[in-house]
């Protein structure tokens, strides 16, 4: 069984599902919020911005830090994975899928990759929303595409650990609320840790998406390494657990 086929099947299972409202609704909300922010206080933001930042940079900072996209992203990801697994739990479809000739590992990995695909779509839609805001407000500067594309790429890399953890949690808990609550708790805890224990946050995956340094000089290499490492560990442990799971 090829992974692309399983991923295609995962996407088709979501056809007419709530996930599309979520993937469109959240970026629509952030777009509207940023539009209001820049409609009201664009001049103020330009006046108080650090030297060297143009309108497009300020828009990214506002979205990521002030609106809190970077901090809330792990929670959105936890919801995506909960929805992906809920489609099996709600009709007890595990017994049907897993009594077909398909490996448990393949199903688990395909769920993870599908979740990552949906997360990437969510992040991309958020970025596209920002571009619309800049165009509608009428930023005078030329858009720096590389910054915006890097913003999407880094967020994806920084969220793979959380994605992998929530793929595991959602496969473990029958009740989809539990992993979502864990995701929410992770977000609350990370906003506390960022300010109280700034040196320790590089080991707490729920903070990684907030810490991307599009606006700073240091590299993200350490965080990316930690994110990838945690992803591999969670995937391995989750897969081990999923294979042993009795389908009742």
């Amino acid at each position, binding site marked *: 069984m090829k992974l692309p086929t399983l991923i295609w099947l995962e996407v088709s299972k979501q056809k007419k599902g709530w996930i599309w409202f979520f993937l469109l609704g959240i970026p629509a909300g952030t777009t509207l919020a940023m539009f209001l922010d820049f409609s009201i206080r664009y001049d103020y933001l330009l006046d108080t911005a650090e030297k060297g930042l143009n309108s497009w940079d300020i828009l990214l900072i506002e979205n990521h830090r002030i609106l809190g996209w970077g901090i809330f992203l792990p929670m959105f990801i936890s919801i995506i994975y909960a929805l992906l697994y809920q489609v099996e739990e709600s009709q007890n479809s*595990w*017994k*049907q899928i897993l009594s077909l000739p398909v490996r448990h590992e393949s199903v688990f990995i395909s769920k993870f990759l599908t979740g990552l695909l949906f997360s990437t779509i969510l992040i991309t839609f958020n970025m596209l929303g920002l571009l619309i805001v800049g165009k509608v407000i009428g930023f005078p500067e030329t858009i720096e595409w590389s910054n915006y594309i890097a913003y999407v790429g880094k967020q994806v890399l920084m969220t793979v650990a959380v994605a992998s953890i929530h793929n595991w949690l959602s496969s473990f808990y029958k009740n989809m609320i539990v992993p979502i609550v864990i995701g929410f708790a992770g977000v609350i805890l990370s906003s506390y840790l960022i300010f109280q224990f700034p040196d320790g946050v590089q080991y707490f995956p729920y903070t990684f998406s907030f810490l991307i340094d599009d606006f700073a000089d240091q590299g993200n290499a350490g965080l990316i390494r930690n994110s990838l490492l945690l992803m591999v560990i969670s995937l391995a442990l989750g897969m081990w657990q999923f294979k042993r799971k009795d*389908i009742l």
Partner: protein
Amino acid sequence: MASNIIETTNLTKRFGKFVAVDQVNLQVPTGGIYGFLGPNGAGKSTTIRMLLGLIKASNGEVDVFGKSIKRERMAILKRIGSMVESPSYYGHLTAHENLEISRRILGVDKSEIDRVLDIVQLTSVRNKVVKKFSLGMKQRLGIAQALMGNPELLILDEPTNGLDPSGIIEIRELIKRLPHQFGITVLISSHILSEIELMATHVGIINHGKLLFQGTIEELRSKQKAMIQLEAEPKNEVETYFREIGIEFTNDQRFIYLDPSFQAAKINRDLIMNGYEVHQMMIKRHSLEEIFLAITGKENAV
């Protein structure tokens, strides 16, 4: 081909201290329909889930097509179609879209969807979302999913659960056709003997996790031993009379049971001549239902 398509050896499943399946040695012959009977909670579904590798056995072995489910799960599942308890489906998708998911995983031709929809007579509603289906239609869709890819073995767990009488007849007729028309061996579980009796060639009876009977339906029927059922008074004195003249019998609170080899008419005459009141005398044959209840310990009928 092995004579038994499914063989389990001391198959056991424990959930903590609770033993759901206890050293079951199932032998399902190739061809025909094997009825797996037992009351609710007897261990049927747990056994079936172990046959499909959905639950790991605590002890024992499962061999299907002569291969171990532990070591060759993929090869085995390629040749099995199954529906475990209620049919699983994605309610927001149409019948066709649901079958497309199974088809892609099985890697079979697109025409398979039309073929199985035709067998279960759901072609006309192929583009209807499944959450709008009646229970009978959902059950038929579950069977269509199980039939996808021409399996050699079909495992159906309580396929008529919740169906009305016409739905039960419909599913039964469909299942009865499968061995002859498509060469499929069927394992079907149920807690209703009368349902199995009408279609099965072999029967296994399980209760409290233990396999209590296994054999052909004829072997089960042979337990329908006939006997003379007598109601006479005073009962105690009649029993004493039988003991004195050397007639063996069994009894319950109301009746006395005699071997049918005795001449009923002669016994009747003797009893009357000796001043006993004979209220009724008849040849009694235990129904399969009574045998089933007796085997599963629900009633002291045999």
